[in-house]
Every structure is written in C-alpha cells, then in structure tokens.
C-alpha cells in the first residue's frame, strides 16, 4: 500500500482546514499510519503461520483460524485509515469546482471575480467542510464498533477452544503474540477515540464561530437601524443625590456651579456616545 501517495494528496488539504483540522491530520499521519506501517504490520505478519492447534487433523487449523479471525485487524485498520482520510478530498474537490467556475466567469466578464477567495469557508464550502467532518467522525466510530463487534470487546485471548468440523471434539488453539497484539489494538483504539473527539471539537468550533458571527452581524444591524430611525438626544440628568465631577478633565477650576453642571453635561454626553458605539 502506497501510503506516501495518500499522504501527498492529503497534505494539499491542509490549506483549507481550521487549526483543529491540521492538528487532526498530523495526529492521523504520525500516530496511526506510521505506527500501523512500522510496527503493527510486523506484529500481525505471521498470524496465520503461527496459529497452532493441538491436533493433527488436517483442515482443523484452517477452519478454526477462519472462525476466530473473520477479518484480520490489519486489514480493518487499513480500510479504516483510507475511509477516514478521504472525506477531506470532498473539500478539495469543492474548492477546485469553485476555482473552475471563477475562471469561466472571468473569461466571460473580464476584470471581476465570482469569488474573492475560493478557499475561504463561506456558503456551500462551509457546509461541505462540516459534512466532511461528520463523515470522518462517523467512519471512525463505525469501524470502532465493527472491531468491537467482531472481536467481542477488543479481546485477544491466548487460548481459544474450537469445536467446528472437522476438528475432533474440542481442540485448543493458540494465537501467536496475543499480548503484543492487544497492546497495539488498544493503542489504535485510543488514537481513533482521540481523533473522533477532535472532529467533534472542530465541529463545535466551526458552528460556534458561525453562530457568533451571525449574532454579531444581527446586533450591529439592529443598532444601525435603531440609530437611523430615532433622534439621539442627550440623556436626562441622573437622579442620584451625588454629583459626579470629573476631576481629571478639569484644567479649569471646578468650584463655579455653572462649571460643575457644565462638566456633568459633558460627561453625560460622552457616556451617551460611548453607549451608542458599544
């Protein structure tokens, strides 16, 4: 399997991701693919040859191996890694499509562009990105569940008893390197779980950012409409018994009563304008 080709394809995705997306991609490649290629394939390399059953009956070993390992962990993980890294290609495809449309538009209307930046996550691209995240998380979760279902809770027993035809009665069968396999299974499961968690974080971040932006724009629009439809007048004097004097602004001497009320008026005007701009 040429993992470097897949890696080359996916590093191009980096440009269109968020911060979480880039961390996720490095996590996937460094921990999962590297560990998978360097270590796990060696551990599972001799699983079929070294599977031993306590019998000389021909065919018994094959039948028992097949029932205990319907699909090998290695193949499942290879499939998982391929499925999980491909939704990012959806985003790349969408950006390419946008760039094509932009080119066609420029050819017809020279001097103006359809998209300011085809890679910016607005409109349709935002939905595509969110959808790719949803797919990533669900593929990971689905494969974790499949692994759990097939191997009854990520278990790797040292000894399993087999009673299928043509094995005589019950036969003891021994898996090779069960502890090492269990350690790597746990490692891959843990890194899958972390990747799912990061996908969820990224989804929350994306949706939160969008909501925040929409709320901000709505609030600004409301303020603008309010300012346009009303005459802004100076606020009435405060009803408190204490008079507020801004000692720092007075280069002039405060004591004249006229001066005091005049300062107060200035403070209130300043308060009114700053309240409008907030």
């Amino acid at each position: 399997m040429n993992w470097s080709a897949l890696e080359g394809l996916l590093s191009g995705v980096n440009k269109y991701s968020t911060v979480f997306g880039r961390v996720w991609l490095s996590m996937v490649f460094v921990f999962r693919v590297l560990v998978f290629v360097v270590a796990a394939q060696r551990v599972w390399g001799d699983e079929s040859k070294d599977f031993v059953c306590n019998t000389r009956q021909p065919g018994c070993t094959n039948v028992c191996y097949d029932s205990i390992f319907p699909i090998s962990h290695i193949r499942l993980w290879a499939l998982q890694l391929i499925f999980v890294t491909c939704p990012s290609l959806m985003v790349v495809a969408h950006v390419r499509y946008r760039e094509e449309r932009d080119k066609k538009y420029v050819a017809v209307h020279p001097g103006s562009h359809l998209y300011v930046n085809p890679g910016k996550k607005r409109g349709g691209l935002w939905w595509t990105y969110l959808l790719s995240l949803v797919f990533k998380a669900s593929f990971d979760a689905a494969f974790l569940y499949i692994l759990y279902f097939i191997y009854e809770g990520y278990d790797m027993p040292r000894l399993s008893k087999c009673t299928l035809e043509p094995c005589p009665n019950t036969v003891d069968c021994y898996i090779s390197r069960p502890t090492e396999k269990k350690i790597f299974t746990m490692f891959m499961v843990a890194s899958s779980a972390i990747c799912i968690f990061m996908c969820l974080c990224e989804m929350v971040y994306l949706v939160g950012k969008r909501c925040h932006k929409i709320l901000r724009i709505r609030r600004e629009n409301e303020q603008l409409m309010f300012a346009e439809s009303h005459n802004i007048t100076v606020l009435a004097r405060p009803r408190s018994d204490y008079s507020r004097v801004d000692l720092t602004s007075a280069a002039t001497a405060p004591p004249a009563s006229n001066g005091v009320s005049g300062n107060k008026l200035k403070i209130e005007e300043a308060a009114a304008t700053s309240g409008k701009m907030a």
Partner: protein
Amino acid sequence: MNWASFYAVISGVNRHSTGIGRIWLSVLFIFRILVLVVAAESVWGDEKAGFTCNTQQPGCNSVCYDQFFPISHIRLWALQLILVSTPALLVAMHVAHRRHIDKKILKLSGRGSPKDLEQIRNKKFKIIGALWWTYMISLLFRILFEAAFMYIFYMIYPGYKMFRLVKCDSYPCPNTVDCFVSRPTEKTIFTVFMLAVSGVCILLNIAEVLYLVGRACNRHFQSAEDSPMVAWITQKLCL
C-alpha cells in the same frame, strides 16, 4: 509512509532549533533510527521463529513466547522514537501559525507582493516569547517520554539483559519446559547500545533546557541593565 518521509517532516524543524537541538536530531537519526532499521530489525527478525522449547506439545511455544515477551524490543523502540520526535511537530506548527499570521498582516497592509511572501517563508524565527514556551514544553515532553520508555523497558525486561534460557510452566506445557531465545548476546549488545544513546539524548535535552533558560535570563537582565534593582544587587554582591 516510512522512516524516510518521517525524517523529511522532522528535519524541517531543524531550521528553528538551537545548535544543541540540531545535534540531538542528528544523534536521533544516525544512532537510533538508522541503527534500528539497518541492524536491529535483522537481529530481532527471527525472534519468534528462533524461539524453541524443549517439547513437542503444540501451543507451548506460542504461550511461553507470549509470557516472556509481552512486547518486542523493536516495537518498543519504534514507538519510543515516534513519540519522542512528535513534540518537534508542536514547534513546527507554531512556526507555521506565526507565518500564517504574518502573511495575513502583510496582505492587510497592502504589501502582499510575491517577493515579500517569499521572504516570510524563509524567515528564521528567533526563539523568544510564545515560541520559547512552545519549544520549552516540547523539550520537557521529550525528556518525559524518553524517561517513561526507559522505565517501561526496565519494568518489562529487568536488568536489560537478554536471557539465554527461560523455564516455562504455563498451560499447555507439561510440567516445566526449557525454552531457548535466539541470539541472546547480540540482542543484549544492541539493547545496551540503544539505551546508552537514549541516555545521551536525555542529557542533550537537559542541556538544551538549561541553555535556553540561561539565554532567557541573560536577555532579561540585559534589558534591565539600567534598572536600579540590578545595580543594587550587583552592589550588594560585590561588597
């Protein structure tokens, strides 16, 4: 994906390391990854096939091997190398983030010509401020991972010595059975070598931490040279 492309990724970090960091990286690649790939894997290649027990009982071989070798040395070292090199990615991500921000600022201020952008790509960032903290955290994680793996190694294989003969009596082996490990002396030599190089790497990382801290203190005191506090301290120390 193999060690070669991993090397390409990690050596990109080289530009933003200190001198000691570069030495650490060379030690890592030449003495650890290269030795692991070229030599150690052929020594441990037949570990399961060459593990023989003095019995014809089927399954006894597998069970005894599993009991005495829960995880192979080679896999432990591969995991150790992967985990120890990944904090460097933190630094690389930080630098990429800074470059991204610089490009944005440049574009906003209107000077986004290709030459300026090219300049940003080749700019070398000094290790100060937030980058200093990121670098320090990555160093501390490296030291932590190395120490953790040395401890795990010691826990699983006490004494770091590879035994020639083990006595095994788990089911289904009848009574007690002698089992023999293949190439024990060669394995011991390589184990001791990899551990020594791990120790050297830990020392290099500690030296780098001290160097960075010293440089930061130096910078701090130089900038505060004309402060009365420093003058007071030096006066008190000289008297």
